[in-house]
């Protein structure tokens, strides 16, 4: 991973399938780049009744701002009438989701294919 500061540390990759969009996040999701996820999703034409999977498996670090961005992304997806699912992530991400009990609000899945 390039050791640059700020937004470059987060990579967002979109993969559209039938009724299902995979948003693969990698790097770090934190205060420095938390607004990027939302702006990427806003540009995405989300179909109602579809599923958007936020894939966190490649996220190495996430802080509370990152978590806030994740919850905002879920809100946006659900406002468009789509369903949002989040994969499990690294140990640090898992711990954050557990400590904050954000798992209570998110639909967690084990793998993006599910």
């Amino acid at each position: 991973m390039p050791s640059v500061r700020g937004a470059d540390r987060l990579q967002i990759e979109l993969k559209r399938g039938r009724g299902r969009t995979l948003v693969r996040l990698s790097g770090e999701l934190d205060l420095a780049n938390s607004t990027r996820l939302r702006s990427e999703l806003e540009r995405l034409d989300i179909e109602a009744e579809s599923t958007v999977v936020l894939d966190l498996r490649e996220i190495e670090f996430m802080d509370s701002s990152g978590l806030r961005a994740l919850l905002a992304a879920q809100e946006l997806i659900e406002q468009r009438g789509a369903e949002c699912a989040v994969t499990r992530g690294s140990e640090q991400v898992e711990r954050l989701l557990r400590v904050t009990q954000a798992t209570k609000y998110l639909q967690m899945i084990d793998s993006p294919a599910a």
Partner: protein
Amino acid sequence: MSRSEEISSTPGRSPASRVELLLEAGAVLATSLDLRTTMGQVAHLTVPGLADLCAIDLVNKDGSIREAAVAAAEEGLAQALEELRARHPLDPNGQHPVARVTRSGEPELLAEMSEGLLRSFAQGSEHARFMIAHRYRSAAVAPLSARGRTLGALSVLRLGDSPPFTDEDMALVSELARRAGLAIDNARLFSDLRGVEQRLEAILASLAEAVTVIDEGGQIVFANQAAADLLGATTPAELTSAPPGTIMARFLVLDERGRELGLESMPSRRVFEGIQPEPLLARNIVRATGEERWILARSSPVSDPETGRVRYAVSVFENITEVKHVEIAERFMAEASRVLASSMSYKQTLRQVAELAVPLIADWCAIDLLGPDGVERVAVHHSDSERLALAERLASLDRPVLHEPAIVPEVLRTGRAQILTDIRPPGLATLARDREHLRLLEAFKATAMIIVPMIGATGPVGAITLVSSESLRHFTAADLSLAERLGRRAGTAVENARLYTERTRIALTLQNALRPQSLPEIPGIEMSARYSPAGELNEAGGDFYDVFEPAGGDWTLVIGDVCGKGPGAAGVTALARHTLKAAAMSGQSPLEMLQILHQELRHQPPGEDLCTVCLVTLARVGEGARLGISLAGHQQPLLIAATGETGKVGEPGTLLGVRDPIEITESTATLDPGETLLLYTDGVLEGGKPRGRSGERRLLELCRQAPELELSRFLQRIERQALENAGGALSDDVALLAIRPSPPPR
């Protein structure tokens, strides 16, 4: 060759006159070093005393023979011979006695020459007729030699009825020729040397670098035109005719630090001390005009080859003014920028800038700042401490008032730079405020002045005054543009510093709002807290903690983390703390307190609404305490047993401010004497963003030591470790709050 003893006692050729001849020849040969003249004089010495005709022939470098001098007793003969020889040069390989002698290096005496003999070596019939017509009778030809080489031949002839030459005459001619040979050699060497010298002079004269040669007495004995130009003379001759020291007196010579240099520091003088001096870089100011030049002077000795004594100093001067000005300007700007960026206490950095400016770009520098209370002079600097005192007195009188028609206020009002060149005493009166002020201005001997505004985004924030005084230097357009650059840089720095100071003040105020000024005392409970914000002071926000006194109920300890940074987050953080405090004071239960905060946060803009809280209630039970732990998305606190064994307490609950409903469960624990409860924020674990669980693992390891440590030291260690994990710069705030019931007194 025939020799005749009888003729040796020819009257008029006495030994005395022969000695005289040699003495005369010696005198002639010693006085002149010009070859042609010398040879002419030698030839004339022999005529008419010794001979009727004398010719000196020299061998050219190509081996040909040329006539160098002819002397004859008979009028017109010398010229006629010269013309003949010009038409019929001697064949160097022929039988002419001169050719033979130059080849053999041996003298030849032709005591009696028959017509047949003359014809035998004549260079053609005209030559033969010439010799016969002029009745050539007797000849003595001696080689002109020096250093083993035959340079030519000296021929003496007697004509008509003159007696033939004797062996004695031959010996005399040979001796004369030997001396003439040496003289010719010397003259040639001299001529070669002159040639070298002339070429050298031609080279030096055409050099762009100034070159001078100075003798032991300090007299300039040589200078080229470049030297004349550099030293302010019209011609090199003006320099070589000036008495020693007078040229130097035209200049003020300063070293790089502005100290005046005397004659004894000049490399051209130090050469005579028998050392090879280092090149000297000096600032040279023409006293008459104030023109400034940077000159690099190098000098080398020219020693007497015999005594080794230094006779001359050859100096080469390079005018590097332009290079130096650019270098000084760049170096000064780099240094000034570094100083201006080094600190936010801008009054101090401006003082440093003033110190940098002197003597590099001015003799005196003053900096005025435009503040809410008018104009304030924040820096005055002069390289000379006596003058500095004067400058400070002047500054106290010269305190600019914005509405006065003085220069500094004008620059501050208009934002336009001013340059005053060639200030003379009468002009000072217009600048002076009163007589005392004028007296000081005069004492200052200012010769030029530049006043530039310090420009920030909103306009002038101050002014920089640069003054030239004893250095006499003129300020140029380049100096003005440098000063303007400095003004812009300093203006931006001042403005940034003021903004920063303002932001820091706000941030500090905010941060103070996030934490209690002091912790209350809970009887029988040791308590300690630490907080270290990430990043710059003005990036306040994030973590908070507090301890509330019970209003008849339990003590409440809170620690929390608001997502985000900066004033917005700090505002939410303060809101969280005060909301919880107010709720606690009004006797709300922990879950109600968290619910109230959650509702408050739901009204905050997205992004600054997320908050995690760990809330612990504490009721004294005997020596220990009963704890009620409620977690809203926050780390579980650690309970460290007296043995160092550490466990997490509390049930994870949902975070606040983002989603409804919140789900939080209060759980209980007991804290016995000697046991420690540690509340912390995730900066402790993630200040350095460790991968995996290393942050937590390290924290748990530290907890083992807790029972042996005073609480404050324990927290210090945690904080230090978090800082180390983060490589010295925390990326997240760290807040710590710990309690420990005191062990029962023994």
